[in-house]
Every structure is written in structure tokens, then in C-alpha cells.
């Protein structure tokens, strides 16, 4: 922000100008780094003034204009859908699945009337269902990361979440899933 890091995810106005500004930055990064960039859909708690389109339109056009991949955070889609009152599955329908390189799953926290993307706690059932829906829409296995970075539980609890993600992936995509983690931690 004005040359100063604020160490948080901040929303942009969903405007044409913001889209062009961000797409130019994406192209610049990819050119300088020489590697493809994967952009994540973030949670946002307030629409910024000057919006000319909704989030899904903004994100879809941004990915095209920046020609980059998508890290689709399924929990973020759910959180935003609840906070801003849209249909999460319809949002998934509008994502360019051929650009999705990774999926994220996480828990979250209800604070007042707003869900905050805290990465705390187990993944709730509606997010699991949205994950299942996303894999069906993609029609392929997509690498999936479970985020749990505050109030971290015993490893076994996190691995239970991994097992559940794998089970869903097997149900949707067939038995092409890597073997579960082994080791004595469980």
C-alpha cells in the first residue's frame, strides 16, 4: 500500500482499471521471473467502491488478461459466498478450470455476522461438498493443500482431513490418488 507492506490481503475495487493494473503486474512478474504465476482467489470482507463487475467476472478476466494459472481456494469461495450472498457453486461454474493448478481447503471462523478466513479448525461439510463439486467440474485430479496455520491440532487431526480429501478425490476422479502418508505419527 503506497509502497508499504501491510501484511494482509486487501481487496481491490472490481473495476476495469484495477483489472488492467493487476494484469500488467502479473505479466511483469511472469516476464521477470521467467516462470508461470498462479493467482489465488482471496477472501474479501468489503466491496471497495468503484466496482464495475462482480468477483467472478473480475477474476476470470484477470486470469485471461494476465495469462496465468489459478490457485482456487475452495474455502475462500465459500467464505465470500456467505459474506456477500452469492451461490458458491455458480461461482465455481464460472472459473476457468483449465487454469486451475491447485486447490486449497481450510477452516474458518465466524466473528459476528462475518466469516473470517482464519485457517483455524476443521473444514466444514459445506466446504467439503464444494470441494467435491469443484473436482467434478474440473473432471480431473488437482493437487490439494489443506491450510491449518493457527491453533494447530495434533498431526493426526490434520491427517484425518488429508484422508478425507483423498477419499473425495478417489470418489470423484477414480483411484489415481497417491498413497496416504505413512509414518508413526498416527
Amino acid at each position, binding site marked *: *500500500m*503506497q509502497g508499504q*507492506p501491510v501484511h494482509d490481503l*486487501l481487496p481491490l475495487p472490481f473495476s476495469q482499471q484495477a483489472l488492467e*493494473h493487476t494484469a500488467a503486474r502479473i505479466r511483469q512478474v511472469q516476464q521477470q521471473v521467467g516462470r508461470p504465476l498462479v493467482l489465488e482467489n482471496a477472501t474479501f470482507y*468489503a*466491496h471497495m*467502491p468503484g466496482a464495475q463487475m462482480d468477483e467472478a467476472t473480475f477474476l476470470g478476466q484477470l486470469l485471461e488478461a494476465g495469462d496465468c494459472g489459478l490457485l482456487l481456494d475452495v474455502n475462500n469461495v465459500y467464505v465470500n459466498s456467505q459474506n456477500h450472498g452469492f451461490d458458491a457453486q455458480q461461482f465455481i461454474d464460472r472459473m476457468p478450470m483449465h487454469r486451475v493448478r491447485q486447490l486449497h481447503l481450510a477452516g474458518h471462523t465466524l466473528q459476528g455476522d462475518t466469516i473470517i478466513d482464519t485457517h483455524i479448525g476443521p473444514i466444514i461439510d459445506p466446504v467439503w461438498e464444494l470441494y467435491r463439486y469443484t473436482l467434478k467440474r474440473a473432471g480431473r485430479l488437482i493437487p490439494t493443500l489443506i491450510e491449518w496455520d493457527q491453533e494447530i491440532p495434533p498431526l493426526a487431526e490434520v491427517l484425518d482431513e488429508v484422508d478425507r480429501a483423498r477419499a473425495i478425490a478417489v470418489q470423484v476422479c477414480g483411484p489415481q490418488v497417491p498413497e496416504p502418508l505413512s509414518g508413526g505419527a498416527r
Partner: protein
Amino acid sequence: MTRQRQPPLQTFFAQIGPFLLGTQDHAQTVQALYGSQGKTSIDAQRLEIYGRFCQTHRFEAVDSVFSACRQAVLQHQGDAAWAALVHRYFLAHPMHHFELNQNGEHLPTFLAAEAEAGLVPAFLPALADFDWWEWQVQSAPDDPADAQPDEGPLRLGSTVDVRPYAWDLLGYVKDPGATAAPAAKDGEPQLIVFWRDRSLDGRREQAHPLELLVIKAVIEGVALNQDLAKRIGVSTKLLKETAQDLLAAGILLGQPAHLAPSKRKTTSKTKSEPKRAIAPANRKRSSSGLVSD
């Protein structure tokens, strides 16, 4: 969704920036961003979340790294004073680094000016410096030169630093509630060596003059031999034992063979040979006044 206005992106950043940086309140920002029509909207209300998050990060940047310093302010001046101090600090030194905790690097200097003005206790800048160097040692990246600690010539570990303090900070942080302030060191400063030991744990202890002489000799490539022992007035045996302690503690690195006992007959122990302060963490220390955490 609020659609009533489309400020240029630069205007948007200029309007929301001061709020996120803690220099403009929520009401003013809402008015600037959403106008009178939208200032009661849910978006305007939820903007407060971002102000809160950014404020939290400012505290996160300094609360843990400067834990002793914070505790001292809480004890002397209360919670509100610490909050105000953090606010003043980030006004003077806005965040500039992607590594959150690195943004506290100017706090000791900032507190020196604050102490000069009588706004904080006089010992606080030193305590902040102490906190900062503890963190520097703990968070320093691994240096390839440290990868084989028992190989190569005698050398200093990459994380080692010695800092002088005009207060007994070690005594104070050991039991900060016991005294209102650390005892002032009259005359000689308290020299504290900070380093990461062989177990990669951050450590800090008061360094004895003989240990500092050994460290200085190693830095300058001076052999730890009988000649040096004679010059500084200790036995060769004590000189090498001191170096061995430093080696075991991880302050010195290198082949222990460099410290093999001399084949020449060593001189007898000097009458008032100084004690050594630094011992390896896993060695039981003697009761000879060794300083411990």
C-alpha cells in the same frame, strides 16, 4: 455492492492507505471511500476489519520480538502506554520489510530518542536492543560456514555478536518482576555475547574478559599458545580450556585438535586466574559465579 462512485485507482489507494497504516480513523475513511450515501452500508462497516487486521500486524511485528521491552512498559506505564508507543513507532518508521518482525529493527533507536525526551524509562532502549539481538540470533539464516562445526580452522560462529549494556539486563530479564528496573552498571558495561549454540538454540550470556580475549584472538588469527597466555597473564591450560568451552558452546567452531594440549610444559596456574563464564548448555556449570539464563 457499492457502485455509486468510481475513483481512479490512485485516489482509492490514497483514501484507504492512511486508514490501513493507522493514521486515519474509520469514519473519515468511510466518508472518503463510500460518501454520505454509502457510509452506513455493510461494506463500509466491514472496512473496519481491515483496519483492525493491520493494527494487529503492527503489534505482531514487535510484541514477540521485544517481549522483555514490552513487559517493562506494561509494568511501568501500563497497556495503553505500550499501544501508544507502538503507534508512535510505526508513525516514525512505517513498515518497509516483507518479513514482519524485521519491521521492528528501528525500535531501539526510536526508544533512545523517546528516553531522551523522558517518555520511556532510561533503560528501555538497551532492553530493546537486547531483545532485538536475541531475535537476530534466533532467526539468522543458516550459514554454510557453520555447517561443519568440528572442521576447519578455529573461527567464530556466524551468529556471534557481543553487545555492551549499561544495565544488568541479564539479571533483569531473568526475573523482570523482581525489580522495577535493571541495576545500572557503574563503570564497566555488561558485555553480553549472543549466539546460536550447537543445538541451534539462541543463547545470551555475560562474557568474561578472558573469553572476550580468546574471541578477539581467534578473530585476529592469533594462536592460542603459551606466548599469548603469557601476554595476558594466564596459564596456557586455562587459555585452552576457555577456548574449549567456547568451542563446546558453539561460539567458536573448528577442529578441536587446534586446542590440543601443548607438548611443552605449561606454566603453573597463575595465582588469581579468572573464572570462565560461558559453558556449553548441556554441561553442568560450577558454582563459581557462572552466569546462566
